[in-house]
Each structure stands twice: as C-alpha cells, then as structure tokens.
C-alpha cells in the first residue's frame, strides 16, 4: 500500500507571543516540532506499511527549516520525504494550502491512501485534509479513530477498500471508504513510537528534495496569498479570565457554600 502522509511543522508551544511592533506572531526563537496530531498520522501510515507492505511518503509545505520535521518522520519509519517550499506559497490559507499539497501529491504520483492529522495545533482549522481530498477528487473520512480493516487486493484494485471508525460527538460511525482515499486521524488511533537510533542515523543522511511551485505545476493564482480567499485582519490576545472566590474550610462548609452560590445564580 502506498501511503502519503501530510505533516506541518508548528511552534513547540501554543503559548506564542504577538510582536508589538509588527502585530504579527513572533516566530524567532520559538522551537519547532511536528504538529502533534500529525504524529498519529505518521505512525498509522508506518503501521499500515509494516502490515501490508508498500511505502510511506511524507509531504510538508513550509519554509526550508521544516526539513527537520520531515527528517524526524523518516527516523520514525517513513520511507521518503518531500518538502514543498517556495516563497510564493507564503500567506496561504487552508484553501491554497490544500491545493498546493494536492498538486505535490499529484507530482509524487500513484497512491492508495493519504493520512493527515485531524488539525494543526497552530491554526486549529481541520480544513486542509478534506480540502486536499476535494482537490484530488477522492473520498475522505475525517476524525478516524480506528482502521478496522483494509482490503488491499492487488489483483483487482477497484475493490480496494477500508473500513474505519469516524469519531462523532456521542459515539462513532462505521464507514467504508474506497481507495484511494484520504483520512484524518485523531489521537485515539495509536500511540506514536519514538524514533529508532538506526532510523535517526539514516534520517540524518537522507536527501529530502525541495519542490517549488513550478515543480508541482501549481497555478500561480491558486497558491500563497493570491490563492487565499481568507485574510487575517488582525490578531490579539484573548481577554484573560479573572479568578473568583477562593473558598476554604471543612468539606461540609465548602460543599454548602458552593451549592448555595450555584443556587443563588440559578444555574442548578
């Protein structure tokens, strides 16, 4: 099974600061990591490959330094990595990003399954996965918490199919999806492995190709800022939440005080 995993490099902390001068996010000095949700995607891809054979190609769109995130996925068992990078991609919103990644996937060529994390921890949109599926005109299932079974029939690829559990607010749906398809995965699906030492050593030496807009045949009007319908007008800190009453005393007293207060407020 040929699997493509899309990842994003994000700041290691979500506790980012706004630069007072430029009113944009301070990116300097902030450590970067693989988007935590994408780690589940990489792990699931590697597990499927280990079970069914094939290979895992990881793709990321981002600045040249995103290479380090790709290298890490190689140390965790991915076979190949591609960095899609071009100044012309800068400022892309989810639509332009979906298009760009879809074009990069087309450039990779044949695939059976694309796996994405459910969302990135910086943008928190959860829109790029389904967006890629639409751009490639394949089926997708979001919020997958388990792959129940895969039927990978080499003799009749038309029958290739996957049965997955899609997480819902109050349970889960069981859905069958024909391959090729895209899934986005949630934390529940696996526990990502740590890299192996041999994997880390090999990953350090691996060549990671950089593909620009031309290489992936991207339509200039659909990438970067020009391909992005949504614009960030401004960013600001949310108003901090103020603390309230600190209650102390014996358990009975505490309980009474609380229940009285809640009844006063008519919330119970």
């Amino acid at each position, binding site marked *: 099974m040929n699997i493509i995993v899309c990842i994003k490099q994000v700041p290691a902390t979500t506790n980012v600061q706004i630069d007072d001068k430029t009113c944009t996010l301070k990116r300097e000095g902030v450590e970067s990591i693989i988007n935590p949700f994408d780690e589940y995607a990489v792990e699931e891809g590697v597990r499927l490959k280990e079970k069914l054979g094939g290979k895992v190609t990881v793709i990321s769109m981002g600045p040249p330094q995103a290479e380090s995130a790709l290298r890490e996925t190689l140390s965790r068992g991915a076979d190949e990595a591609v960095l899609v990078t071009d100044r012309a991609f800068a400022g892309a919103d989810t639509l332009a990003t979906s298009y760009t990644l879809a074009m990069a996937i087309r450039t990779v060529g044949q695939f059976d399954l694309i796996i994405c994390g459910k969302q990135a921890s910086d943008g928190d949109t959860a829109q790029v996965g389904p967006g890629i599926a639409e751009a490639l005109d394949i089926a997708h299932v979001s919020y997958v918490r388990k792959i129940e079974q895969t039927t990978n029939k080499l003799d009749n690829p038309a029958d290739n199919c996957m049965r997955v559990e899609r997480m819902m607010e109050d349970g889960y749906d069981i859905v069958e999806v024909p391959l090729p398809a895209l899934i986005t995965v949630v934390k529940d699906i696996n526990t990502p*492995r*740590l*890299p192996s*030492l041999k994997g*880390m050593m090999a990953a*350090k030496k691996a060549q990671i190709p950089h593909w620009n807009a031309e290489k992936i045949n991207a339509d200039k009007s659909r990438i970067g800022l020009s391909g992005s319908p949504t614009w960030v007008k401004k960013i600001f800190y949310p108003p901090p939440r103020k603390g309230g009453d600190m209650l102390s005393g014996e358990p009975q007293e505490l309980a009474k005080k609380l229940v009285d207060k809640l009844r006063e407020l008519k919330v119970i």
Partner: protein
Amino acid sequence: MDYFLDDDQKMIVELARKFAHEKIKPVREHYDETEEFPWPIMEELAKLDLCGIFVPQEYGGLGKTIFETVLLVEELSKVDGGIALTLAATGLGTFPIMLYGTEEQKKKYLPDIAKGKKQVSFAITEANSGSDVASMQTIAKKEGDYYILNGTKCFITSAGDSEIYTVVAMTDKTRGSRGASIFILEKGMEGFTFGKKEKKMGIRASSTRELVFNNCKVPRENLLGKEGQGFIIAMKTLDISRPGVASQALGIAAGALEDAVEYSRQRKQFGNPISSLQAIQHILADMATQVEAARALVYATAKMVAADMKTRHTRECAMSKLFASDVAMKVTVDAVQVYGGYGYMREYPMEKRMRDAKITQIYEGTNQVLRNEIAAALIKENLQKSSS
C-alpha cells in the same frame, strides 16, 4: 559543561532522554513498588535499537564504544537507575563474549543481544566469595564433551529473566584464581535452576536471584577462552564495565540534581521559592559541582577504555566508580533534604533515588575494595619508578 559530543552521541542522549521521560517516568513507581521485571520497557528499548549499541555492527549492533554506553546509561538512570541497570547488566554479561568468544559463539549469541531479544547476566559472586574470587566454590568438572557444574551463585542481576549467562566456575581448585574458567550458559539447560527473587532496598525494577547448578551439563563449546582464563576475563570485563556502573551512579545523582533544582523553584515558603534561600542555594551548588566532577571523571575514563580495550585501566575505572557512587549517595541524601518532608515520602521520586544510590557503592567491587586497588596501583607505580 560541553563534552563536545559528536552527532551520533548527541542522538543517543536525545533519544535516551526522550525515552526515559516518556516511557520510564510514568511507570517507575510501579516497578519500584511491585518489583516486577520491566519487560515492556525492555521491549521498547529494543525497538529503538538501544539494547545493543555496544555490540559490533557485524553482529547487528551499532558498534559503539563504552563511552556511548555510558551516555545511554546515565540518561536512563537520571529517571530510573533500576531499569537502566538491566541494560547495563546485559552489557556486563556480554563483554566476555565480545572479548573472548569464538566466531561461532559470537554469531550464536550477539545478534539476539543486539536486537534486545535476550538479556544477559554475568555471574561471579557467591555467598562466601564476593571480592575474594579465589575462594569460589562453584566447580566445573570436565566429563567428555561436557563440563558438569555444581554450586550456587548469588545476587545475580537479571537472573531468571536473562536468557544467557556468563558464569565463572573453578575448573582447577588447586590453582586458586588461575583455576577459574568462564562458561556461557543458557536458561533451561539441564541442572540449571534459579533461587528465590531477592527483596532489595533499591533498584527494585532490576531482578536479583541465585543461580543453582546441580550437575548442570554445559557443552564443551560453551567454554569462553581457555581453561584457567576465567579470572583474567572476569577482571577485564569488570574493568570495562565499571564506567557503566559509574554512569549509573552519575545518572542517579544528575537526575536528583535536576529535580531538586526544579522543585526548589516551585516550592514556596515565606512567600518565596525556596531556591531564593542561600541555605538551599549552597546545597544545590555543591550538588552540581560534585555531579559535574563525577561526570568529567567518568567520561574521561570511558573514553580511555574505548580508545584502548587491550590495556587494563584498573586504577582509572576504579576511581570513576568509587567517586561517582560516593557522589550519588551524597547528592541523593542532599536532594531529599531539599525536598524536606516530601523528600521522605514515597509519592515523590527522591527517596527512591537515595535507596537506588546505595547499591552503587557496593556492587561490582565495594568502594573499600576499589580503594585497595587504587592504592595498590599507586604503590606499584611508585615501586617501578624508584627501582628504575
């Protein structure tokens, strides 16, 4: 301090650190309480290629030296000295095979050790023979194609859980320490059983049992080296592995220091973190200085051993184990003090470190025996100088 580690060494440290924090930290109390053997942890370590980093590449290992092993054991010991010991003990048991094994023996045993499929124990100590090897009572008698072993080894690390054992036994009692030989034993051999599991003060994730040989039949090809070489092989092995024990002690101390600094910044008394009190600051400063001194000595020794495996570095190896283990004991006692009442409680990781540290002053040569060795080396050196 910067020890100018190369890229591979940095990777080993980074991976070991990550592993220790993500996988060992959440379960260390469990293994300390239950004294279970940490099989799931060992399996995970194996998956990360961390089990056999010292095994040569042609046998599936990473071909790294004792120095990299020291870095790895230190990092794991920062979180749990007991679990780190299982890995270090396998190293100790494997070195005799690496040093003196025939090609057949290496091919048979090393790949599984490198993959982390099998643990190894080194068995020398007996109830009445600790530091005094010549008084050993386990006998190996040659009978045709076999050696017949009789006797009991005690306090053997990982015994019962290991698959492979390198065992010292007397093939010729009349020749004293020159009558000792080493054999490779496998769990399940006829006449080879285990005694009860010992209950220990510390390093409780590591298992300790007796080995009991009752007319145990060991094939002749399982003799390591030649008959009578046992004592030399054992001493060389202990020389090489001593930096490993030293790094376990170093790691326990360094972990205690890291946590104590962190805790002192969080714990508030009289409205301020206790790290603002000079009384605490001085304790921390002394802890840090001792840890760094131990590290410098252990690293230097390990690099020396790695560079020249042929020569014995008895004195340096003894010094680094002696110093690092004394530092571990002192620093963990101080760390408990910094934690105050919480330090004494089993809910916090400090008292465990203090219990773990104690063994490093005792095993693989008590610190008293090591002082003898160091002094003997000094005197010998001086004698040679004055006679020349």
